[in-house]
């Protein structure tokens, strides 16, 4: 057990995070379990704390590190490296002369070769210096010691199965090697020493060629390259993709074809396939496919959701850049899929039902109900301002809604079909709740929440943050409206509240047939997001309030 912990540094990471107060409850329980049962883990813990205590104390060995290291030299070096690369491709800079001849502006251009006579002594010295420099570079690049040095770390894995029963696990140091890694199943995340981060999807074969270079033989990968790794390169059989501060995905087929999708920043895409020399600058939002058999490069659609961009095994997160769906949460999913849209939440009991009930005979409910079994939902309520503010969160946030009938008709559900009962025959007809402006997704009607007045639901954003500590919520977006199938409108009101404050209110009425999209920024301190619908004062009949495609837009922290 301890061998595993030491080799993987997971334990070390836990201890550091525990002492910084950033360990999740679940991780803390695991840490305690290991410390309780493994003397070697306790020894490691003690030694790690001793190390930290030494660093904290007076006369820490860190304070003795030479001043040139403590300065910004390291970053300066990277900056110069980046600038030098940029300079090679930069446009000429127009320069205004202070006292220009002929009163013209001048442009700096490459100097024109002129015949000059050179003294031979400095020339020999120059040749000797150049030869020495080349020797140093070659020695550094091809030194036999280089092979054994680690250049990256296996930062995370998700169901990874390697060829030849290899057992590289999270925390393994990876060296530049002549032998490729073959990933048969799952996902791995590699963190280079220069902070470039590459997520590889199986089946794939790749090779680390150095501290800033990876060769992809086949498979898919996504690279996130910060400024510290400017110039990071991915090579394939026929091409090379050079980063210029960016995020990009590469799909390499077994037939040699290569796809490059640039999602942020820009890359240089160089190909020598079929004897052609092609070099392209690809900015964000562009993608190309290289056919290795012909050397042709074709423009293709840049697909935002084609690559796994990030994994976090501790929160079971496989993230392709997608937003978190509130409809999926109601269906019991994790926000990124897996929810069952037939589920619903009963407003009178707060019970999560496997099949949502619709067509209640004018039930009434008061008070805030917490919801068990849906960890991201704080609770539900029936808004009614007739007797004062309504409690809308478990912490007692209140909001004064307009007076309503205090009745509701349906569970809150993510079901895209509404069960409409014919009053005379009793036959139930399932009616689409698609809004006029909506187009069907590949899977049918896009995800939505039916919040039939009078009803409200509050989501606990802190629970979502805890579940996905590596992602950050940027905003909430939703499209509010009544289904297209209704050829008339009742008055009904849509509400969006953040921590009890109204951030969006929209009233549909007899003339207003339009749906409305709203996007609200979410800050790290926001705790509760509330969606509610009220009857507009004319009863709940046909108030089919749809909160379509309700999503939290996420970004990597």
């Amino acid at each position, binding site marked *: 057990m301890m061998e595993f912990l030491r080799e993987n540094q997971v334990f*070390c990471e836990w201890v550091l995070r525990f002492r910084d107060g950033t360990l999740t409850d679940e991780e803390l329980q695991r840490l305690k379990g290991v410390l309780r049962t493994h003397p070697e883990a*306790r020894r490691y813990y003690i030694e790690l704390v001793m190390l930290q205590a030494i660093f904290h104390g007076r006369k820490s060995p*860190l304070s003795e590190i030479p001043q040139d290291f403590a300065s910004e030299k390291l970053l300066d070096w990277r900056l110069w490296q980046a600038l030098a690369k940029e300079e090679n491709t930069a446009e000429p800079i127009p320069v205004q002369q202070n006292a220009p001849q002929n009163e013209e502006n001048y442009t700096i251009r490459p100097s024109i070769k002129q015949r000059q006579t050179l003294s031979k002594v400095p020339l020999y010295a120059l040749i000797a210096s150049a030869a020495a420099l080349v020797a140093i570079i070659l020695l550094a690049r091809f030194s036999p010691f280089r092979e054994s040095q680690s250049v990256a770390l296996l930062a995370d894995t998700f169901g990874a199965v390697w060829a030849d029963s290899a057992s590289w696990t999270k925390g393994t140091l990876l060296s530049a090697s002549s032998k490729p890694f073959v990933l048969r199943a799952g996902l791995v995340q590699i963190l280079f020493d220069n*902070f470039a981060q590459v997520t590889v999807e199986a089946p794939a074969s790749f090779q680390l060629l150095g501290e800033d270079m990876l060769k992809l033989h086949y498979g898919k990968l996504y690279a996130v390259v910060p400024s510290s790794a400017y110039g990071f390169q991915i090579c394939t059989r026929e091409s090379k993709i050079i980063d210029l501060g960016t995020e990009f995905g590469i799909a390499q087929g077994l037939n040699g074809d290569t796809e490059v999708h640039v999602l942020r920043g820009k890359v240089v895409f160089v190909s020598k396939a079929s004897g052609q020399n092609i070099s392209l600058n690809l900015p964000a939002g562009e993608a190309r496919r290289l056919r290795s058999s012909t050397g042709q490069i074709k423009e293709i659609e840049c697909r935002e959701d084609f690559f796994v961009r990030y994994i976090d095994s501790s929160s079971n997160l496989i993230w392709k850049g997608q937003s978190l769906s509130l409809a999926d949460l109601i269906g019991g999913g994790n926000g990124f899929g897996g929810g069952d849209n037939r589920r619903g939440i009963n407003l009178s009991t707060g019970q999560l039902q496997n099949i949502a009930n619709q067509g209640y005979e004018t039930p009434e409910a008061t008070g805030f109900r917490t919801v068990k079994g849906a960890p991201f939902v704080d609770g539900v309520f029936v808004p009614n301002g007739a007797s004062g503010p309504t409690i809308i969160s478990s912490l007692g946030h209140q909001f004064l809604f307009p007076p309503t009938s205090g009745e509701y008709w349906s569970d809150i559900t993510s079901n895209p079909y509404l069960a409409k009962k014919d009053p005379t025959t009793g036959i139930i007809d399932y009616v689409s709740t698609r809004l006029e402006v909506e187009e069907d997704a590949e899977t049918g009607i896009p995800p939505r929440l039916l919040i039939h007045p009078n009803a409200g639901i509050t989501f606990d954003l802190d629970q979502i943050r805890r579940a996905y500590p590596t992602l950050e919520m940027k905003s909430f977006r939703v499209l509010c409206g009544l289904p297209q199938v209704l050829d008339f409108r009742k008055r009904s009101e849509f509400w969006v509240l953040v921590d009890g404050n109204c951030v969006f209110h929209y009233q549909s009425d007899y003339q207003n047939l339009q749906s409305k999209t709203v996007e609200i920024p979410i800050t790290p301190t926001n705790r509760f997001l509330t969606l509610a619908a009220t009857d507009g004062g004319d009863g709940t009949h046909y108030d089919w309030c749809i909160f379509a495609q309700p999503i939290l837009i996420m970004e990597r922290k």
Partner: protein
Amino acid sequence: MRLLFANERRIYSYIYLLIPCRADAEDLFQETLSIMWTKFDHFEEGKDFGSWGIGIAHHVIQNYRRKKGHGPLYLGEEIEGLLEEEAHQSIKAIDFRIEALRQCLTELNPLDRRIIHWRYEDEISVKSIAEKMCTTIKVIYVKLARAHDILLRCIRRTLAEQGSE
């Protein structure tokens, strides 16, 4: 004073082992020093000054816990008891560890050394380091874990070679 300088790291390490919050640990350390100063007459010459100080620190921590209760960074009585019992030898040998660490810091690559420097010497939070490096908090923790692990292995190796462990 000489005795105090020679043993302050041992006493601080003991407190920090049980109180992970650095600010609280430093407050308790100062309180311990102040009690040691006022009770110095009770110290019997020839005895282990560091152990005497750790004994006082133990009571200071107990009082602090009685007043403030257990915060979220509490591992529980059983685990703390085991750590206290087993830390004795490591705390005693802390000066050897410091010497070993001086050599071991050279084993880190410049970037890892830089991050350690930021974290401890410049007291920059992990979040701020992540922002500086345009990367994620998780990545910085992975880097820090690796750097600490390299140092711990190196210290163990060095102490074993010197026969100090």
